[in-house]
């Protein structure tokens, strides 16, 4: 939740930071931090106030937080993300000042976002966090929806508006278990882990509607799963699902375009993709309406 501008009606919104663990005083402007351990990478998040930290933590899967950090051996994180120059908080929200500098999000001292409005930082934070993780992790992170069907993961790479979420929702409605809407986190052993962020579907007015992971069948007991296959599918109204299997090389090239680490570690990414596509099939094709084609898709990937 982003702190609201100073308005006495919002006085009750000054809730304590649930990520903690460092701030114990009620002063709204106490610097604080939270530690994450995700995809084999340790990340420290820092902000000037618990409320600002909470706003960032809202975009982090709950299971990634580390409650205790051993500081006796000095800093142990691989990436340090700092949100600087946020507006100071009054008793009931941010204090607006015309001289306020734009706030900055730094990853290991490099500014990745500069914005006047804190909400702009919050909206882009998840992307920057994932990019920072992808650059440092030995895991492979793809822009992809993931569901698990009969114990194996179906990975659905695609760009924004490609209809990933619609297809994920249709598969879940057909009995698959929700693992991720937008990111596939694949460990070095080739297993896919859940990234249980809410599923975002656009309604008729193109506005996003969010569905909690638990509504879609995800629970803490959802463990990492081997990959049944990758499906790069393009939506065409009126089409019937049809897909062809790519060669491992073609598959690796097709997935390369969706890999977050392609920018920062292209060689490693390509090698990982070749290993994956040697084991799991990559299908490319087109589909019509998701709820009509879902059975054919599950058959093709089973």
């Amino acid at each position, binding site marked *: 939740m982003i702190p609201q501008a100073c308005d006495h009606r919002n006085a009750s919104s000054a809730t304590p930071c649930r990520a903690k663990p460092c701030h114990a005083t009620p002063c709204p402007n106490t610097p604080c931090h939270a530690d994450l351990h995700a995809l084999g990478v340790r990340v420290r998040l820092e902000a000037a106030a618990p409320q600002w930290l909470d706003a960032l933590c809202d975009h982090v899967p709950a299971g990634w937080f580390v409650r205790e950090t051993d500081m006796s051996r000095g800093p142990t994180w691989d990436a340090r993300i700092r949100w600087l120059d946020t507006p100071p908080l009054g008793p009931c929200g941010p204090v607006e000042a015309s001289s306020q500098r734009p706030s900055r999000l730094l990853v290991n001292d490099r500014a990745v976002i500069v914005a006047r409005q804190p909400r702009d930082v919050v909206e882009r934070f998840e992307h*920057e966090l994932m990019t920072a993780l992808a650059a440092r992790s030995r895991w492979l992170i793809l822009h992809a929806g993931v569901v698990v069907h009969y114990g194996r993961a179906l990975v659905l790479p695609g760009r924004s508006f490609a209809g990933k979420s619609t297809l994920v929702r249709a598969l879940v409605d057909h009995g698959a278990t929700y693992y991720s809407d937008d990111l596939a986190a694949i460990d070095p052993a080739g297993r896919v882990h859940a990234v249980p962020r809410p599923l975002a579907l656009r309604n008729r007015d193109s506005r996003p509607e969010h569905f909690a992971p638990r509504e879609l069948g995800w629970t803490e007991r959802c463990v990492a799963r081997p990959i049944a296959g990758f499906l790069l599918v*393009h939506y065409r109204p009126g089409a019937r699902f049809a897909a062809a299997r790519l060669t491992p090389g073609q598959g690796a090239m097709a997935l390369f375009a969706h890999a977050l680490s392609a920018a920062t570690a292209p060689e490693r990414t390509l090698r990982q993709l*070749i290993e994956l596509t040697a084991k799991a099939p990559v299908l490319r094709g087109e589909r019509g309406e998701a709820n009509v084609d879902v059975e054919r898709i599950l058959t093709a990937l089973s």
Partner: protein
Amino acid sequence: MLQGHTEALTAEPAGAALGELMPAKRSDLVVETLPDETLVFDPRSKTAHRLPDLVAWVFARADGVTQILRVVRAMRAERELGDDAPEVLAEILAELTRKGLLVHDLGSSRRAFMRQTSLLAALPAITSIVAPGPAAAVSIVGGISPVVRALPECSNTESYAAIDENPFRDTSLHPVSTFAVDVDTASYSNVRRFLRSGQLPPVDAVRVEEMLNYFRYDDPEPADGIPLACHAEMSECPWQPNHRLLRLGLQSQRIDSLSLPRRSLVFLLDVSGSMNAPDKLPLLRAAMGLLVETLRPEDQIAIAVYAGAAGLVLPPTPGSQAPTILAALDELQAGGSTNGGAGIELAYNVAARMARQGGHGRVILATDGDFNVGMASPGELVRLIERERQRGIFLSVLGFGTGNLKDSTMEQLADRGNGNYAYIDSLAEARKVLVREAGATLHTVARDVKIQLEWNPHEVQAYRLIGYENRLLAREDFDDDSKDAGEIGSGHHVTALYEVIESGQPSSARGASPLRYQQTAEPSELATSGELAHLKLRYQPPAGGPSQLTTWPLQRSNVQAPATATSDDFRLAAGVASFGMLLRRSPHLGAASWQLAHGLVTSTLAGDHAGYRQELMELIEEASSLADQA
């Protein structure tokens, strides 16, 4: 130059090069060998390449020590290639060189060997994908991210004229809006080329009117005898609900291709060294091959080339002699510098000769951007084109390739030459321009077409013409037949959009402060009659002569549609315009978003007969994704 290039090849036959050593692959490449294919990552260009089977086989033997002759023999023995093994090897080595995967120290005879390639051999292509660049800091301070992805690091001399978007105009001060129509489509295909290569286009490469006019709309054709019909529709502006959006659609008469007058076409082709890339001369040859298939016996075609020297490689030849025309196309080779001597004059002289035998002459210049066609200065070239236009010979321009595109010059030349400018990025686009829309591209039905709208200040307080920034005319130019404007071909459609602020609406548009000495007259009867504007259209017949004027009062009751009942054409135009404005980072974006543009286009898919709207949706998705990463 063409002859000179041919001599160089025959003076050093391929056989002499077979004793040369194979070129070596670069040592810094990351090579991953798979069964039947190889992936190569080039850390310098951050590009991954997939080499299919035979290409991978040749790449593995690019070691700098094996004789070419031995590889040719091995290709015959192991790969079951026959007499064409040397040509196939040359083709593959040329492709690997173009992709930058070989050490660049080719000897002259090895270069000659690789130049024997036809560039059109049907080999499996190398596919490449560029890794996205490292993320730069995103600044959202101004509300709009100013971060633009840089063009590729390779030498890039593309140029675009700066565009200042039309502002809102106060109707009490500027009640009249005048512009020349524009039927160019190059900007859309150029934008597509950028997006497909993983880059957002430069802002000035995005001309919204050319994007609008790329698409087919369903406006009815004019009634008998009138070359142009005009349609208007107004509804809520999707990105600014307080405003209205007025769509004007100009549809020309569609003439059946068999009824079109005889065509006399002179192609002036750039065959300079820079055209030696798969998306340039080979694509141009294939595109012209498509056109040849559509020629009728009475049509005539001639081909002139320019590079080191100008020459006529095909004299005027009737369409019935397709084999002769195709043989001349096959002979075309790229090479040499662009110094065309009398290239353009030669083309115009041939076109004039052909026109004297009947039909309209048209020169079609096809180039990647080298305009050194024999004129001492750009001004002299423009004056020549204008002079020839007066004689009835028009000039169209086809742009090809990347890295050297002189977009602004090409558009200007076509504009001055009463022709159109299209950018050919694929064979599909060539088919659209030269075959499917050949009537529109190559046959003019109305010249110097101008549109003028007089807005009724009683109904409208301000308006903004979307696009057409370089087509604006002075109010008095509308009635001056000596002022050049745009040409419309058979079956052409022109769309213009106005964003309108009605009287009494709150306006976020910045206007001038009120004037002190102007009298406020009582509104006339017409001003209170419900007319939004008075639309005037002026054009000349294709052969010239006095202009014709047609006028329409735009009654609010006739043009206004509820927001829930707009036509597909309205929503498509609004979707394209918002896409263009987003790419341009327009100051008038309002609530425009990639989702909005996508939704507007999606709602028109039922009328997508040729797949262009589906492609547009994919481009919006691509742009959205790139903007997210920028």
